């Protein structure tokens, strides 16, 4: 029977939430890897039972876990992330130059065609790839060695490569985003890269229109229109209609255009979701109300989605990888909060209900639509 599997990474373990196609009753399984920070879990589009998970700890470092049975059992695979060659330096907060140093994996992106082929976005920012199911990892060093690399600097959360988008219509094209360097695109399967930040304006950097240095929080693409990208930047919600060559702002009537998540309806490529956060100094929702905003016009005109969400005394955050969309006919939308709630909508955001309320702070949410 058709159903969904929601993969939740939290600060103290991973949880797997499953339901049938109605998405009204849920089974909660976990914690997996109790006590560890689970930055991200994601399933292979080519084999939904193949899952990858990033498990990390300030004490014991980075591990990658792999499952071949949809998360019932796991096995640790390779955790050696070695930068290619002499990695050089990047900017540090105090203006000094700091050598690149691997810290953790923020995002895992299995390839569209091969369950053993998976990309990892890491801190300090770099892109790695494994072609053997996570046993060994090789850096795609052309990104870090892009001429702008020495000028990159960390955002408050670290200098992380947090977004990886594989173009389903062109195997050679990859989009990535780094905080706080910006978005980049490769048209040769990751060998060479160029920044795609024209049109972004960031008042917090010396040249607001700089080629790199922008704090991009997340980027989303609908698979049917790989040339159209939506971006939640530190401030500003942006759109590109030319695969990132240029961007224009679509924040429109949002109550605040700061935020982290952005995602797209599975069947309506012009329907976009964000969760506005009050500001970069107050990482909680605006007016004490948890509201998802939806645009059905590809941006600029946004409506608040509030049914089932707390509308008073709410001071939560929703982090960049903590929203996901299923592909059932009535599109499901999911997001997790800093307060440990995972909310689900089985009607494209018209109404919401919590799947769970009291998990550890949520770092990431992904969903698999199962046959």
């Amino acid at each position, binding site marked *: 029977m058709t159903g969904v599997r929601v993969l939740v990474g939290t600060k103290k373990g991973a949880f797997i939430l499953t339901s049938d196609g109605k998405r009204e009753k849920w089974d909660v399984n976990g914690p997996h890897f109790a006590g560890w920070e689970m930055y991200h879990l994601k399933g292979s589009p080519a084999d939904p039972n193949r899952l990858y998970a990033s498990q990390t700890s300030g004490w*014991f470092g980075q*591990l990658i876990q792999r499952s071949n049975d949809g998360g019932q059992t796991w096995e*640790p695979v390779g955790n*050696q992330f*070695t930068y290619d060659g002499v990695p050089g330096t990047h900017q540090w907060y105090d203006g000094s130059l700091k050598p690149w140093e691997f810290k953790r994996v923020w995002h895992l992106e299995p390839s569209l065609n091969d369950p053993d082929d998976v990309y990892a976005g890491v801190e300090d920012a770099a892109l790695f790839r494994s072609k053997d199911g996570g046993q060994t990892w090789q850096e795609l060093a052309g990104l870090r060695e892009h001429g702008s690399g020495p000028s990159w600097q960390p955002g408050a959360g670290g200098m992380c490569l947090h977004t990886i988008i594989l173009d389903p219509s062109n195997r050679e094209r990859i989009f990535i985003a780094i905080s706080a360097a910006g978005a980049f695109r490769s048209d040769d399967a990751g060998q060479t890269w160029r920044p795609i930040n024209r049109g972004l304006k960031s008042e917090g950097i010396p040249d607001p229109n700089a080629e790199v240095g922008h704090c991009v929080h997340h980027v989303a693409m609908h698979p049917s229109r790989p040339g159209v990208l939506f971006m939640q930047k530190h401030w500003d919600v942006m759109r590109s209609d030319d695969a990132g060559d240029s961007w224009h702002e679509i924040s429109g009537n949002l109550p605040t255009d700061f935020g982290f998540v952005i995602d797209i309806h599975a069947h309506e490529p012009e329907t976009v979701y964000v969760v506005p956060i009050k500001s970069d100094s107050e990482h909680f929702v605006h007016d004490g109300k948890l509201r998802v905003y939806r645009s059905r016009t590809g941006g600029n005109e946004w409506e608040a989605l509030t049914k089932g969400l707390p509308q008073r005394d709410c001071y939560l955050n929703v982090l960049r990888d903590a929203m996901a969309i299923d592909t059932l006919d009535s599109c499901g939308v999911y997001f997790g909060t800093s307060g440990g709630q995972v909310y689900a909508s089985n009607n494209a955001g018209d109404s919401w209900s919590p799947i769970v309320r009291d998990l550890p702070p949520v770092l990431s949410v992904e969903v698999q639509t199962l046959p």
Partner: protein
Amino acid sequence: MIRVVLPTHLRTLARVGREVQIEVEGRVTQASILDALEASYPMLRGTMRDHTTHQRRPFVRFFAGQQDLSHDPPDTPLPEVVATGSEPFLVVGAMAGG
């Protein structure tokens, strides 16, 4: 036979109990114990020391014979009580955090 006590998270990862026993060839040192431990339990590679440099992770400590040996050179012979197996070599997750 060398006795090694692992911290909780590494026991879970290696799917072992509180204490494991390993054979160490040659001199018994931090390095030779960790080499043998990682050979028996490959999933522990990178969790106690760096894969390449073998530098100890900052919040991992090594105790034995009621001494903190964390800052000793890795090839320093360990106390006789560890080499004879009368006391364990302790891998400790440092008390840190709030």
